């Protein structure tokens, strides 16, 4: 018993940290209707500023606390509401998820740009003194200030929030406004003010959580906060984003169980190295499978959503034939010019960079197919790319299989994994589906990819790069480029054919309305599995292509955070079209390369830029590039119309 307590008690502060975040997630979801992935980013921002003010600027602890929690926290929440979430129609789940993700990716990067890459250590505690042992539990389990702060903070927060949400008129108005900002106004409630209040409270909670947890780790790292978010998501999922006490209990449970198990399991066992780190994701998957409330998350819809104007069609579908011919010819010319330039004058440094862009474009095509055409959100595309790459690498290593053949086998393996994932989440959609794919990505990230049999540890597997007898690594050879351009061309053509064919129409019908599609006889489960499998195969091909260039396959290349960033990037440039994916791939590598020339602190700016781009998704779900295309097409058509009128004024007159 003593031993059990000794192992379990240290888990309590971790569990409380999960609980605080989980409760915050539930609060934000219920009062704003947004599952805020950016919550971890908000908490990190407050913790970072708090530590920076006390350790670097020499502020007093309470002064820094007031600024970072009472001013910065709610202020950030209000900014998010005013400029982002207020603009998203309440029924657009994808836009909410993408915006939240871009905050999770963007806020830490933005902080390192603003403050430089500094290591902030020694955040002061705002609660009990962490070094004092206040009392002993049982006979010799010490309880110090960290434990006390965490427990007292969690319980206090829980009580205050439950009372606010269930017992006050403001809570009632916030819950109503989360369901429909329009309908609640018909009851005479100022929805803008209520929602802004909800965001301010949620921001305050995020800030408080961040600062409360800052002293628990030696340095303030965004990584810790993102990991916290994942466990918190698992806890919130068990509560169906509804019951805050349940979320808190599950949060504490995850913390306590993982530390207790850590104490009992031998460190050399597979359980210790693979299963234990994956515990939060196993809990999350369990919630997604067993909690029926999660399947109905997206069912409550704004009854007044028809007040919103319908979304615009893609530019390519509505431009006049005159311009269309011109644009199509332009694309072929651009391709030709690109190929010729790569083969002739582009320096080899930039050729390497652009080659990488080609490989990314193939991966991004999978998002075009899955999200743009089928309307399904997957946060695991980088992981699927990794599945294929590691499969190909291991086949080459053990059986001497050519990497190209191995790549195809790998793509098949990725397709199978994606199909299994689709089968496992058939009953989920929208947010539930996004969480399921995220859990899968994390599972691979902590439990599969680092395994010695898969990647040979963190160092990765070194591979040979030969293609039809050509050395792909030859410094001045263009063979890799030729391979990449052919693969991309085939994949882009394939996606384009699928989009225009029968399958594409079925998938588009499913995106438009699952009920409607089922009504006209579309086999929804099958179409969804097919879309996932095709997208998985595409991601696999792209992933293999990517690692062929780098000669090493390492787990870090397929980090789950990349999956999040991928979705954000593609959505920014335009998720509906094939050229959107290519623009995203080339844009990513070019921006990243250009930033090499900027000072060190701006390295993180790529993700900030793309996150900022994704934030425009709220107002323009078709993507920034698509928006600009529409503007330019409109301009060109107006110019054409003017010219037509000046040459033949009599013809265009209407009765």
């Amino acid at each position: 018993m003593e031993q059990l307590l000794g192992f379990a008690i240290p888990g309590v502060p971790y569990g409380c940290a999960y609980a605080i975040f989980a409760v915050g997630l539930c609060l934000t979801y219920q009062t704003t209707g947004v599952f805020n992935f950016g919550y971890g980013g908000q908490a990190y921002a407050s913790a970072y500023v708090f530590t920076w003010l006390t350790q670097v600027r020499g502020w007093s602890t309470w002064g820094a606390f007031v600024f970072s929690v009472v001013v910065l926290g709610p202020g950030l929440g209000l900014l998010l509401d005013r400029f982002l979430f207020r603009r998203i129609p309440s029924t657009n789940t994808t836009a909410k998820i993408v915006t939240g993700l871009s905050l999770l990716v963007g806020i830490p990067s933005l902080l390192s740009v603003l403050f430089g890459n500094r290591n902030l250590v020694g955040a002061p505690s705002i609660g009990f003194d962490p070094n004092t042992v206040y009392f002993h539990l049982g006979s010799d389990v010490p309880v110090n200030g960290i434990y006390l702060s965490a427990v007292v903070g969690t319980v206090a927060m829980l009580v205050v929030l439950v009372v606010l949400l269930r017992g006050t008129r403001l809570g009632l108005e916030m819950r109503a406004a989360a369901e429909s900002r329009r309908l609640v106004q018909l009851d005479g409630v100022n929805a803008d003010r209520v929602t802004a209040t909800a965001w301010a409270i949620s921001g305050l909670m995020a800030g408080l959580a961040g600062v409360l947890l800052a002293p628990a780790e030696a340095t303030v790292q965004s990584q810790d906060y993102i990991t916290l978010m994942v466990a918190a998501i698992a806890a919130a999922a068990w509560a169906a984003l509804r019951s805050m006490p349940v979320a808190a209990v599950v949060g504490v449970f995850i913390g306590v169980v993982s530390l207790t198990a850590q104490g009992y399991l031998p460190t050399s066992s597979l359980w210790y190295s693979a299963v234990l780190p994956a515990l939060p994701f196993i809990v999350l998957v369990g919630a997604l499978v067993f909690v029926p409330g999660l399947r109905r998350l997206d069912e409550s819809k704004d009854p007044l959503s028809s007040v919103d104007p319908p979304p615009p069609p893609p530019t390519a579908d509505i431009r006049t034939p005159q311009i269309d011919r011109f644009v199509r010819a332009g694309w072929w010319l651009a391709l030709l010019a690109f190929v010729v330039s790569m083969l002739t004058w582009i320096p080899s440094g930039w050729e390497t960079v652009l080659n990488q862009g080609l490989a990314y474009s193939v991966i991004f095509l999978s998002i075009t197919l899955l999200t743009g055409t089928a309307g399904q959100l997957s946060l695991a595309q980088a992981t699927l790319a990794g599945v294929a790459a590691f499969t190909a690498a291991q086949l080459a290593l053990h059986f001497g299989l050519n990497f190209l053949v191995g790549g195809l086998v790998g793509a098949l393996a990725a397709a199978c994994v994606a199909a299994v994932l689709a089968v496992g989440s058939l009953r989920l959609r929208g947010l539930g589906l996004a969480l399921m794919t995220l859990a899968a990505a994390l599972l691979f990230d902590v439990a599969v990819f680092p395994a010695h049999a898969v990647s040979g540890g963190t160092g990765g597997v070194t591979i040979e790069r030969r293609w039809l007898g050509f050395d792909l690594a030859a410094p001045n050879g263009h063979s890799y480029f030729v391979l990449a351009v052919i693969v991309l061309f085939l994949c882009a053509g394939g996606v384009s054919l699928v989009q225009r064919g029968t399958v594409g129409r079925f998938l588009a019908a499913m995106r438009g309305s699952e009920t409607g599609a089922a009504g006209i006889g579309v086999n929804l489960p099958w179409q969804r599995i097919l879309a996932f499998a095709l997208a998985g195969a595409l991601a696999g091909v792209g992933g293999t292509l990517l690692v062929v260039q780098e000669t090493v396959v390492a787990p870090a290349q397929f980090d789950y955070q990349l999956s999040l960033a991928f979705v954000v990037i593609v959505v920014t440039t335009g998720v509906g079209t094939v050229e959107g994916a290519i623009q995203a791939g080339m844009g990513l590598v070019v921006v990243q390369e250009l930033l090499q020339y900027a000072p060190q602190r701006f390295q993180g700016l790529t993700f900030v830029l793309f996150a900022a781009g994704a934030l425009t998704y709220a107002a323009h779900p078709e993507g920034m590039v698509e928006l600009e295309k529409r503007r330019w097409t409109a301009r060109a058509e107006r110019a054409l119309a003017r010219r037509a009128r000046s040459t033949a004024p009599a013809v265009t007159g209407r009765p």
Partner: protein
Amino acid sequence: MSAEVPPVPPNATVPPNATVPPNATVLEVEDLQAGYGPYRALFGVSFTVEHGEAVALLGPNGAGKSTVARVVSGLVRPSAGRVRLEGRDVTGFAPWRIARAGLAHVPEGRAVFTTLSVEENLVLALGRRGSRGDVAASLAAVYERFGVLADLRRHRAGTLSGGQQRLLSLAKVLAVPPRVLVADELSLGLAPSVVDDVYENLVALRGAGAALLVVEQQVERALALASRAVVLDHGSVAYDGPVAGAMEAVARVFAGPGVTSASGTRGADTVGVGARTWVAARGGNRPMTGYGEEPGRRRSWRTSRRRS
């Protein structure tokens, strides 16, 4: 504002507004134009609703009835025209301001908060327009009137049947009697006996001094309640006058432009010019579409990019 509203007895009177004389125009709509993105729905709609009067707003699918209701309650911002409530210009006001000024809108279809309980839905409605009196007493009055809601008070509104949800949204409005009620398709999806109930409540509300604007596809019911009718066709007023002449206009408009242009007798004496010019601009004999379109323009996003 009326700060002290007593608990609602079954036939409460609407709190009088001292600044408005009886028989004054309560709701005035002038040359309204509105739409959704590039799609235009209203092309200059004008009519008035007098104090204590019930007006039926009629028309075929896509005529713009719901859009008129939404513009009046502030849900859709008009691109041109004016909305006056008791003489006060409320054009472009946020919906909650208009609601607090005494206009209640029961939107089409399901219009309750599905994740809140029945009682929470009612409490939310009771708190508006300054009446924070005895909520429990008001609730009791509502439950006495709508017995079925009393049994379901702890249930989530989303678990109610469609008819019960409609009743709940009507009960929300009647909990604090409004000065103007805009009811959009109240009868939709309800059993005939329930519709009778609903219309009895509307008659009582009118008797209590509220002005009603009733959007309805069941023409007979609406005309039985109303003293005046406004018939819309393709976003324009095709008829505005006493109930007696409305049936003829409705028949003409519902039959569609194809029928009338072929016979060549559109009845210029009763039918307004809006519909006819629209038909002429379209070439006279096109099938009706979901939205009215601006004459002579291609239906496309590019034509109205600036507005979006």
